[in-house]
């Protein structure tokens, strides 16, 4: 009886693994091939908690790929995106990355959008020697460098890390706004919110300011009246909201409704037309956030992208769209410069990027695989971008 049981387990295990195998007999053809097309993996959060960020990034990436393909591709090769959903789950992200690299024969993989899920793909990339790039994984530690500080060769990102934006906004608060007391309302359910909050606090306090309160919320919350009422009773000069537009828009609206007039600060998570829709124009005064670019920028690259995106999707692009678009351009540019579909050559080209001019800024790829680019701090007036201050990296 037990024998039969285990026999069965055994055979199902084998059958299970074999059926899994039979699905993928098509040979992974890493690069080279007949050089008519090049496969690029897209490993994003298309369903689950953070699906909106994943979908927005993929929109941008595919828009870039479409443009490139329409213009004849990379050195004559058409880009074939292999898009797989990771369900906003880190283990699934690992599995998808492995699938893309060992099964689908991609030369590079883009995404995931959030730091944790991106980190889950890093060991796979390092093992398979195929580059992974994220446009929005902002965590300071454990992304492009490992915990000992060594650079992860095959890992790149296009965005700022949390410390840069946290520090930038803290300096902006104490410098430009002469704030002495600040309140932090952070997205406690995302690594992004946590990282920004920590860096903001450290810098702001070092500059002589005090954090009078630090409150938290979780993604998809809609009611912030309780914490806003609580801080309303305290004295402070600015509110820092490390989080995404979906909640930040509501927080700003509810704060203004309750009569809280203090300036609101945020980071690139604010950059979305949805912020304006949620908060309404009246509430969006005295709101400042750091971003990669400003729509005020008259650079034709920026204006063309905004116009093209709008023509296609009927809305203004958000930060994920823009970063995704640049990510698509960036990988294509690297493949072109490498003039090869060998992942290692692509990796070298990615690392050796100088003066890449994207929508989200012109950058050199740094030694530590973080882009060296300046940020802009955008000021909103009635929901419209009115001011932008450029902040250069140290």
């Amino acid at each position, binding site marked *: 009886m037990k024998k039969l049981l285990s026999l069965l387990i055994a055979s*199902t295990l084998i059958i299970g693994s074999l059926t*899994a195998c039979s699905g993928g007999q098509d040979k992974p053809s890493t690069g080279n091939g007949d050089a008519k097309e090049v496969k690029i993996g897209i490993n994003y959060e298309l369903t689950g908690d953070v699906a909106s960020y994943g979908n927005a990034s993929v929109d941008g990436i595919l828009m870039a790929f479409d443009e490139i393909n329409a213009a004849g591709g990379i050195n004559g090769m058409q880009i074939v995106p292999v898009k797989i959903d990771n369900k906003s789950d880190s283990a699934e992200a690992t599995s998808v990355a*492995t699938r893309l690299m060992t099964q689908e024969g991609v030369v590079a993989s883009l995404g995931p959008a959030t730091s944790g899920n991106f980190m889950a793909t890093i060991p796979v990339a390092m093992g398979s020697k195929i580059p992974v790039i994220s446009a929005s994984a902002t965590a300071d530690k454990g992304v492009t460098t490992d915990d000992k500080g060594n650079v992860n060769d095959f890992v790149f990102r296009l965005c700022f890390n949390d410390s840069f934006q946290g520090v930038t906004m803290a300096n902006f608060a104490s410098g430009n706004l002469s704030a002495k007391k600040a309140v932090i309302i952070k997205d406690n359910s995302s690594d992004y919110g946590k990282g920004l909050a920590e860096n903001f606090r450290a810098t702001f306090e070092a500059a002589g300011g005090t954090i009078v309160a630090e409150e938290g919320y979780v993604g998809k919350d809609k009611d912030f009246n309780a914490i806003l009422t609580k801080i309303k009773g305290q004295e402070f000069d600015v509110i820092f909201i490390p989080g995404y537009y979906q909640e930040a828009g509501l927080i700003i609206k509810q704060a203004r409704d309750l009569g809280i007039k203090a300036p609101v600060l945020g980071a690139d998570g604010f950059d979305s037309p949805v912020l304006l829709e949620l908060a309404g124009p009246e509430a969006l005064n005295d709101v400042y956030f750091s971003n990669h670019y400003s729509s005020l920028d008259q650079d034709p690259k920026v204006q063309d992208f905004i116009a093209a995106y709008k023509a296609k999707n009927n809305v203004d692009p958000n930060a994920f769209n823009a970063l995704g678009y640049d990510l698509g351009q960036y990988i294509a540019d690297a493949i072109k410069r490498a003039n090869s579909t060998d992942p290692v050559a692509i990796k070298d080209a990615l690392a050796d990027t100088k003066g890449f001019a994207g929508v989200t800024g012109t950058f050199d790829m740094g030694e530590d695989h973080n882009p060296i680019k300046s940020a802009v701090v955008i000021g909103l007036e009635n929901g419209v971008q009115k001011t932008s201050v450029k902040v250069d990296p140290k």
Partner: protein
Amino acid sequence: MRVLSKKNIITLLLIVAVFAVVQVLISVKIINSFYEITLATICINIILAVSLNLVTGFTGQFSLGHAGFMSIGAYVCALISMNTDSTLGFIFGILAGAVAAAIVGVIIGIPTLRLKGDYLAIATLGMAEIIRVLFLNMEITNGAAGLSGIPRNTNWTWLFIFLMATIILINNFIRSSHGRACISIREDEIAAESMGVNTTKYKVMAFALGAFFAGIAGGLYASYFYFIKPNVFGFMKSVDVLVIVVLGGLGSISGSVIAAILLAVLTTFLQQFTEIRMIIYALLLVAIMLFRPQGLLGTKEITDMFKSNKNTEKIE
């Protein structure tokens, strides 16, 4: 030692053979690293499902908080093996995580297991949410950012060892007087009490044992997937495990094993249907429950089917 009966030794040899075959397939790369991940997911899910089956299928206590116990095992194992990166550290981490989960299981089980049915389900769901919020706010767990860079000290060998240990030990438990006491609670709690079964004790025992093995699964998960964060162990994870158990059949260990494999193959297959994968998954879930609400095997084990065939043959 009667445990070394001929039957059991043959079983053992078969288990070793299965292990060896898969090991060979891995080393000659017929099972490549992608399928190896699927295999790992299957092993971890089987451990989770079999341990939940002990609580929900055999003892009849409806739990929606299995991911909570898994997360305890995962965090404890991750923290220990990040500080002592060695196989010994890993083994110690796994066991420490499992024990921690079992202790929490006892602490939570004693008050909540007096509840019945849906109320217990909601209470266990709440308990798992509380555990998750604690991990989200603790310094040592690094909050929402999670723990990354967990050394991968696990591989097919360890996964298989823990998988087999889980199946064999839970199977042994079920087929002992203690296990029968648990089953009697599922069948009729009042009658069980009147037959001298200390229902609270056995519910807590099953709950703790289930938590222990969920903790092992968590440790394996942390160690295999390098990275954990609180949101991995949310309500959805508990539901995923419950779906495996119900799909396989409440009270059927082999059912859980088969369902875990089927679902893993299905998920892998559905990966390519990016936009509609969750729709297909949901439709399948509803359809299976509509057409086979008792699950694939009901309360039977796959071995029972062979046995009943044999019996009828004899009679004829």
